């Protein structure tokens, strides 16, 4: 403890955090009730009390590179018991948002994705790309006859957009973000003495990563919370249906390009049934999430910020347009089905293209942080 840490409060960071849903952060008076009631916090150097004062003092480097904030599952037990209404759960959520922004590459995108003022721009980008693509290839019209989306938006054009998005854009941007993030949390853990080892050994880390997956899939951390336990089911549904849809997309990709079987597929196709089930699960999950967030949990539990809501609404838009385009296709309503499909593709684009910058990135950041925590604390696999 001999060395002193030179503190330079960053007032701007405090203000940013406040706009990201951390507007109550200054209320904390450091009683540490939150750290005591948090079901997830470790015994040594527990959170979120220390994160609260770091947030008040605008100590960015103590927050954005802090793995602890990712161990938090925002169950809000802390916020429920906080005697000051400082909403530590919300603050950590805001810090996570700030972390995604901080390590994002390119930086400007990282800044506009969480900024409520630019929602239209984010939607305008794919719309513009699609219109240009369709216009240039002469497709920009409602096709006649049997509804077939490929007639409106050729699969090749779709893939021309989505394949590079998935294979180049995401790996590149996310890769940079992730490596910055990993470096930061490692350095922070070592500097603050939270890690039991000071090296970063990739094979060991991967081992920890592998055994973290079951924890995530089972949501076992999530289920330790009490204040808003119902969020557990919603989150589980969304996570699994997303995973299901991911699998389905890959199967169709293989079917199309390797097995040369273009759609539309029969509704009796088992893969199709699985896809529809997942879509329904996702819809149910998202609606549950929305109703959970809107539920009145007393003055201490926040209802989320733009950062949270933009993702939820995006997913809602995604399932809604997907479902509606399929239903209207079956109902032979081309004037609705095609625009719906267009909208659906816009949302899919948004989901993929902004993945490293939106709240969805937490899927990866949290997984890595949980794995790192296990690694750094030398916790064995169960």
């Amino acid at each position, binding site marked *: *403890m001999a060395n002193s840490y*030179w503190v330079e409060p960053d007032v701007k960071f405090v203000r940013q955090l406040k706009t990201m849903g951390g507007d109550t952060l200054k209320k904390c008076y450091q009683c540490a009730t939150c750290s005591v009631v948090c079901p997830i916090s470790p015994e040594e150097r527990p959170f979120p009390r220390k994160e609260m004062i770091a947030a*008040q003092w605008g100590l960015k480097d103590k927050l954005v590179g802090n793995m602890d904030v990712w161990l938090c599952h925002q169950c809000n037990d802390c916020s429920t018991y906080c005697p000051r209404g400082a909403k530590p759960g919300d603050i950590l959520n805001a810090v996570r948002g700030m972390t995604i922004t901080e390590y994002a590459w390119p930086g400007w995108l990282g800044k506009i994705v969480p900024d409520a003022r630019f929602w239209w721009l984010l939607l305008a980008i794919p719309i513009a790309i699609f219109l240009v693509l369709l216009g240039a290839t002469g497709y920009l019209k409602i096709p006649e006859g049997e509804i077939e989306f490929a007639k409106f938006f050729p699969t090749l054009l779709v893939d021309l957009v989505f394949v590079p998005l998935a294979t180049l854009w995401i790996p590149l941007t996310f890769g940079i973000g992730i490596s910055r993030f990993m470096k930061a949390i490692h350095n922070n853990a070592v500097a603050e003495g939270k890690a039991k080892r000071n090296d970063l050994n990739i094979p060991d880390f991967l081992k920890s990563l592998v055994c973290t997956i079951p924890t995530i899939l089972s949501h076992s951390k999530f289920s330790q919370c009490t204040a808003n336990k119902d969020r557990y089911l919603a989150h589980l549904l969304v996570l699994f249906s997303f995973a299901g849809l991911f699998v389905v997309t890959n199967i169709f990709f293989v079917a199309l390009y390797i097995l040369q079987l273009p759609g539309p597929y029969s509704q009796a196709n088992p893969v199709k049934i699985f896809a529809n089930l997942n879509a329904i699960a996702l819809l149910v999950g998202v609606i549950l999430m929305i109703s959970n967030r809107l539920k009145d949990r007393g003055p201490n539990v926040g209802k989320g910020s733009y950062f949270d809501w933009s993702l939820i609404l995006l997913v809602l838009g995604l399932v809604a347009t997907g479902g509606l385009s399929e239903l209207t296709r079956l109902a032979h309503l081309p004037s609705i089905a095609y625009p719906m499909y267009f909208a659906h593709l816009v949302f899919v684009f948004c989901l993929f293209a902004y993945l490293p910058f939106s709240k969805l990135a937490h899927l990866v950041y949290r997984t890595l942080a949980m794995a790192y925590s296990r690694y750094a604390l030398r916790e064995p696999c169960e």
Partner: protein
Amino acid sequence: MEKKLGVYICKGCGIGEALDIEKLEKKVPPKVKICKSHPIMCSPEGIELIKQGIAGEEGVNTVVIAACSRRVLYDVFDFGPVIVERVNLREGVVWSHKPEEKRMTGGEEGEGPRVDELIQEMAEDYLRMGMAEAERVLPPEPYKETIDKKIMVMGGGITGLSAALEVAKVGYEATVIEKGPQVGGFAVKMRKQTPSSYPYEDLQEPVIQQIIKEAEAHPKIEIRTGLEVARIAGSPGLFDVTFKQAGTKSKWDIPEPVEVDEGAEAPPQPPDADKATPEDPANILAKDTDADRFGAIVLATGWKPWEPQEQGAAEEPKEGEEPPKEGEEPEPKEEGPNYEHLGLGKFPDVITNVALEEMAAKGKILRPSDGKPAASVAFVQCPGQGTDEDFPYASSITSMVALKQAKYVREDGGDDTKAYIFYQHMRTPGQNEYFYKSAQQDDGIFLTKGDVVSVSQNGDGLVLEANDTLLGENIKVSADMVVLGTGMVPITRDEPVLNFAYRQGAGFRDLDLFDGYPDSNFICFPYETRRTGIYAAGCARRAMGIQECIEDAAGAVLKAIQCLESAHRGVSVHPRSGDMTFPDFFFQRCTQCKRCTEECPFGALDDDEKGTPLPNPTRCRRCGTCMGACPERIVGFADYNIDSIGSMVKAIEVPEDDDENLRVLVLACENDAYPAFDMVGLHRLSYSPLVRIIPVRCLGSVNVVWIKDALSKGIDGIMTIGCKFGDDYQCHFIKGSELLDIRMDKIGEALKSLALEKERVQQVQIAIDEYDKIPGIIEEFMETIQGVGPNPFKGF
């Protein structure tokens, strides 16, 4: 006065079931005019029964009521001028003892006296003791003098002026004495004051100007500036105050006391006081005929900033110690933390909160070194290096001031100005919490607990280092200015201020008991100081803010008025409010030993050239300490004296030749210990039936002759139970229990010479809420006494 006793025994509240009342009645001697019992003595019929005895042909003038404790129903059993003596059969006997038909040891078939018989004996003893006391007390008569009801307010700050206004508003006259050239005190040097009304978040314009205007305009208030008190003589209702120009000398100044060794018995005496003539001002009893007369005094002399102890540098080397060699810095002393490590005096930009306030009142907050606006200011609370040494003087004031001044910093600078507050404690009681919250809400105010260990120069700024912060580590911050939060030290700590022409000295005594504050009991009796008639308010009493000072002033004024009116009616003001008795001295037998003068906790006694005590009844609080101190046993009160208690002790029947049926006398202070015994009964706890309890006004009033009498009578053990003494004393009369403790030390020697064991006499300290400990304490003492065996003087 010829005593005509009437004894009335109540059978209610379980007394009748537990005791054999007929047997008890038989113990009443035939010379008692009336002896009656009633099922419920406090009922209208019971009261009527007593009244008949008083009004009837028997002409009872002294009523002995054997019923409940004297602490209850005193208003029901009030028969005007008739002496009323209460015998505590309820709480003291039947509620605290079960009359079982078993033996002391080993149950029904066991050995020793039967428990129910012991309890009957207990009741009989108490009845005898009550009658004995009733025979020896007289109805009190108040001591009346013509008094003056003007109130002097010392100090013309916010508290003093508010006090004067309170005095004037209720129709009394006030004179404000201010040392400085004008009134207003520190309050006029403030920019803003902390909020006093909803929502308790924003700083307020100071109210002082308004108060000054009101006070100056009030016809019942006289304000005199540039004056100091040279001497205060006399007593409540009759204070003679001599003023002098501030900073000058006067012939009426109280002479410096000669230094006395600690532990010496004689009080500090001015030089040649004994030789001075009654007219010579060097004699503190000399009367200044030009003095102003006041009835009571409100002490509002305020505070000065707290400073930690000086470090050893200036001190003379002690004997036997090597003087420091040339060129060598003397070793810094362990116990003397100061501001040196924080750079006060070394760096111009390190200032105190007092200096910052004055700066802020005049204009913007600028760095003293270069006059540039301060972009970051660090406030350091408790600058005593983590010791919390200023704790007694910080109260909530240093916290509130730091929050207030942090707001100034943010007000004066731009949006990016920073104010840091490092605290050991953040105390914002009551509504002040809202103020704390509002300061916290400011993005530019950064708070943490932490121990600031150093301030150093860095370029043209300062760097502050703090350990053990809430940030989880030791940190450094750079700041343009550092402000040290100093507490408020009452002026009374270091200066006599009031300059009493009292034998016990010019200032307050035993100041170390309360860190220099003049209170006589801070918790139970706010405003009352160790000198009757002087009521402290505002920062003289505790570090506090403007609003609290205003409220405090009202409290002290109410006390001062109570004092005037009590003096006017010739009764005690407090804590025995309304007590008409006062100590009477049988001077013919006085040996001029001055013990009473010295021991009186309130300096009520002066003495003449020969050393004979000169009582000042209106200064007296009727504690009885003088009576306990007097070796000649010549001090007493009409209803409480050596004889009245002595006769109670003698009225206890001590069984002879019985190794089991021992007797233990308990002298219990009526403020805490005796009520605690009542509570033992109330809670149906139990203690040995071999104990006899006599309430006393204060352990300080216990005269050792009672102990000697008891021992020579054959009583096996004696316990004195009183309030805690020492640092956090709870004694109502400051030092009563401590004084008895000292007296008892001496009695230890006497016991030895009589071949009696020291263990037979024991003193215990107890608080009123510790009643549940009493049975254990008694049991332990009984075991001790059984261990040393029966008193060999039995039967002599």
